[in-house]
């Protein structure tokens, strides 16, 4: 049986790339965790479902970004570090399993945070977990970040339609820009995912603007949260 060539050939340790990935990861995680912990008090006081979904979405995003970094790590430096102790060809797909599950759930939860009042179902959360698990298992067994990217793109369209219908029904024109911020957040997560795919789009010239824009989106949300959680 041919050995699985999960990671492309020639992916050697590059300190610049590693530094960029690490800084990007730390910034995103710091912002996500800030949002999660800053809204804890608010959630504990109110047990408001929307706040619950919102903060959990960012905790899930933080976790998904950690596994995204792990996926990058196993594909780039694991040859130097892990070859003797870990079956490297399995670590990538396992990271991908977690990325798929956590990020799909994060997208679901952030969408639910805005539509939960119109989508009250006893087993809604179980259903979301089941769909996220199903998607991640498919991606795990097919060993393909591309399938995850496509699936999440379909989810993005679903999230846009649901949020649009919700904002139209609520007739609230107070904060229509949040809809746009969420769409950009999902979109740039998906672009982040696509960067795990084929090697030809791994160029730093393409990655860096994606990372910068992703950070800007997170920073916008960070400041909006900070404003209300002093």
């Amino acid at each position, binding site marked *: 049986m041919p050995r699985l060539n999960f990671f492309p050939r020639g992916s050697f340790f590059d300190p610049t790339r590693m530094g960029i990935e690490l800084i990007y990861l730390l910034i995103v995680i710091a912002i996500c965790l800030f949002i999660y912990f800053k*809204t804890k*008090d*608010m959630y504990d*006081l*109110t*047990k*408001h479902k*929307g*706040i619950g*979904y*919102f903060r959990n979405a960012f905790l899930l995003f933080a976790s998904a970004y950690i596994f995204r970094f792990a996926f990058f790590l196993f594909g780039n430096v694991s040859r130097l570090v892990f070859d003797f102790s870990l079956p490297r060809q399995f670590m990538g797909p396992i990271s991908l399993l977690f990325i798929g599950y956590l990020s799909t759930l994060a997208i679901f939860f952030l969408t639910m*945070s*805005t539509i939960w009042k119109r989508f009250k179902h006893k087993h809604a959360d179980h259903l979301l977990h089941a769909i996220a698990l199903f998607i991640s298992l498919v991606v795990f067994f097919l060993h393909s970040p591309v399938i995850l990217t496509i699936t999440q793109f379909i989810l993005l369209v679903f999230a846009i339609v649901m949020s649009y219908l*919700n*904002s139209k029904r*609520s007739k*609230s024109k*107070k*904060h229509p820009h*949040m*809809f746009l911020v969420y769409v950009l957040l999902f979109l740039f997560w998906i672009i982040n995912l696509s960067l795990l795919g084929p090697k030809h789009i791994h160029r730093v010239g393409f990655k860096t603007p994606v990372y910068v824009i992703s950070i800007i989106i997170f920073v916008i949300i960070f400041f*909006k*949260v900070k*404003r*209300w*959680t*002093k």
Partner: protein
Amino acid sequence: MRKKRDRLEVIYDIMKIVRENHNSIKPTPLLRYSNLSSQSFSEYLNELLEKEFVKGIKDKKGKRFFTLTDKGFKFLEKYTMIQGFIEEFEL
């Protein structure tokens, strides 16, 4: 026509009534001022007691009063921020 209050607004209104009555009010006037049916009122009141936002106390004559707890005062203080946050993120 005034729009229907959401859950959080009702909770805030009830607690505000308690605070505005020198942090001590009997159940009947609280029901009257809160503008709720008796069934909804007892549901909300139970929730407030469960969350420890208010507590029931009895005076020497055995009459029952409701007062805000520290947690209740904290909620009232933070309510504007919480409501602003909910509106900002359309939660």
